[in-house]
């Protein structure tokens, strides 16, 4: 029986919840930040056969520690291939990637993500790095998982810039735009809970709250209306073993803190 930890920080919790979503013997295209550590944790727990792909060409690595970049040598340590971006992006477009795993700065109720600018594009108030590989993951993987902080400024009625496609403006919009059939956001993980997307409306729907979080907390920290179903689950806190592994993967505390 796994021992549940009593003390953990929000990033540790998010990493553990995210990691449990990834299935063994499936593939995941991993973006920078928490997605990296969550995927590595999954590999060390329930999903030893998880195939991790990095955009710069690392395929199937078994890295002992967290990379700083999605292109550094840790992303192809003991990998099955040290390939190229053309290869990684092409196999994704061809349908080999089950999950895409991303961070985000702002998101709307259809899961559209902004990592480009706050304010006007021509004269930005804040300039973020842009798409990087995010648009490619969000366009081309079968299912996208998004991990991000949640508050009213991040869960927006309308994002300032759609960097990466969610369900755009609703059901069927992705296919009409030309994106691959059946792809799109699958789960969103924040410090408050886990969300899915409603089958009919493609709008964000609460799936579970984290221990100690109320539905009111979830509503108060969003600028758009989140669908609240009758049944809402509660996520399991990290186990002592998961926490130990997280700190083994990230001994310096780059991603999950000290």
């Amino acid at each position: 029986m796994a021992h549940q930890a009593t003390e953990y920080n929000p990033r540790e919790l998010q990493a553990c919840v995210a990691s449990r979503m990834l299935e063994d013997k499936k593939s995941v295209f991993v973006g920078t930040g928490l997605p990296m550590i969550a995927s590595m944790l999954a590999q060390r727990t329930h999903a030893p056969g998880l195939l991790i792909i990095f955009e710069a060409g690392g395929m199937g690595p078994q890295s002992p520690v967290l990379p700083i970049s999605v292109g550094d040598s840790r992303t192809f340590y003991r990998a099955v291939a040290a390939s190229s971006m053309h290869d990684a992006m092409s196999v994704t477009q061809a349908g080999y990637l089950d999950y895409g795993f991303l961070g985000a700065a702002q998101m709307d109720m259809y899961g559209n993500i902004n990592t480009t600018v706050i304010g006007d594009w021509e004269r930005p108030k804040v300039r973020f790095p842009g798409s990087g590989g995010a648009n490619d993951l969000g366009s081309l993987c079968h299912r996208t998982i998004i991990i991000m902080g949640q508050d009213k400024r991040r869960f927006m009625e309308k994002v300032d810039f759609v960097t990466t496609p969610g369900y755009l403006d609703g059901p069927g919009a992705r296919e009409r735009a030309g994106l691959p059939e059946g792809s799109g956001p699958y789960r969103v993980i924040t410090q408050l809970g886990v969300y899915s997307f409603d089958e009919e409306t493609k709008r964000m729907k609460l799936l579970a709250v984290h221990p100690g979080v109320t539905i009111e907390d979830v509503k108060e920290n969003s600028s758009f209306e989140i669908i609240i179903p009758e049944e809402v689950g509660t996520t399991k806190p990290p186990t002592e073993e998961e926490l130990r592994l997280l700190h083994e993967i990230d001994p310096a505390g780059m991603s999950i803190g000290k």
Partner: protein
Amino acid sequence: MEILLEGEGELLGWHDPDENRKWVLENKSRHLHDKRMGVKEAVGKFVRDGDYVACGGFGHIRTPMALIYEIIRQGRRNLAMAGKTAVHDIDILIGAGCVTRVEVAYAFGHELRGLSPAGRRAVETGQCKVVAEISNAGYQWRFLAGMMGVPFIPSRNMMGTDTLKKSCCKVVKDPWSGKPICLIPAAYPDVAMLHVHRCDMYGNAQIDGILVEDFELARAARRVLITTEEIVDNEVIRNEPYRTAIPFFLVDAVCEVPYGTHPAEMPYLYFYDEEHIGEWLELSKTPEGTKQYFDKYVFGVEDFQEYLELVGGVRKLNYLKRVERFQEPMRAPWLEKK
């Protein structure tokens, strides 16, 4: 073909394929000859004000830092740069005032280290202009089209987003499936700069580990400048020709610069110098600090050798080798503030 949507972004580095073939015919030598030179000569000869430039590697991995410092030292201005995941390379060049236009897939960030103070300040004050957005796959496929000598590559990413609206791409109706398809135009950078593990004097270059998009970039760019950890005999290349990522006829200059990507990472050889990157991230928070950095590390030294001494010499470089091989934990000042 019916055009469904046209991106508003500036089209950097595009040429009609026939125009580029003609340029290649007239300007690129097929002669196997010695191309060794110093970085000073390479930049002096091949990088001009206003050029559209791209760096190999991945922004802070295998980036051609010796050439970048030399561009700053020689005072090149108004460069347009491919933000094809550009990290430390573009931050330094923007901070120094050399780059004023960027097509952005990824720029102004340092991944886990946070955002770039210098790059962001330049964009938010209008000193540097983002002329177009694109995604990483999008940029990489611009080089693929350039390498293939075709005007564009069709793709299925970016559609439906503002990234596409602000890009140089177009969406058309695919004549086969009838579905919308994105057309990504070719890019032919004026100059590509790449740092590699080994290369012979003619420019036959090998890269250990992931190629990122260097294979395509080196074939799309008009001028290719290579810095290498070591220059090897042509026999080394001929014994294992399957390891050549970039053959000589693409290459214009070969410069031997050991540790030439410092403070970036050279896979299998040495890790990022997080203390140095941390110093840059700290100093570049203000224009005065930025100037101080360049005065010390670029204008205050004669060449890359002297710079390596200044950043900690053999002792520091040996430490970075040990970190790369997991023999020592890394020291990173930016981590203390997390």
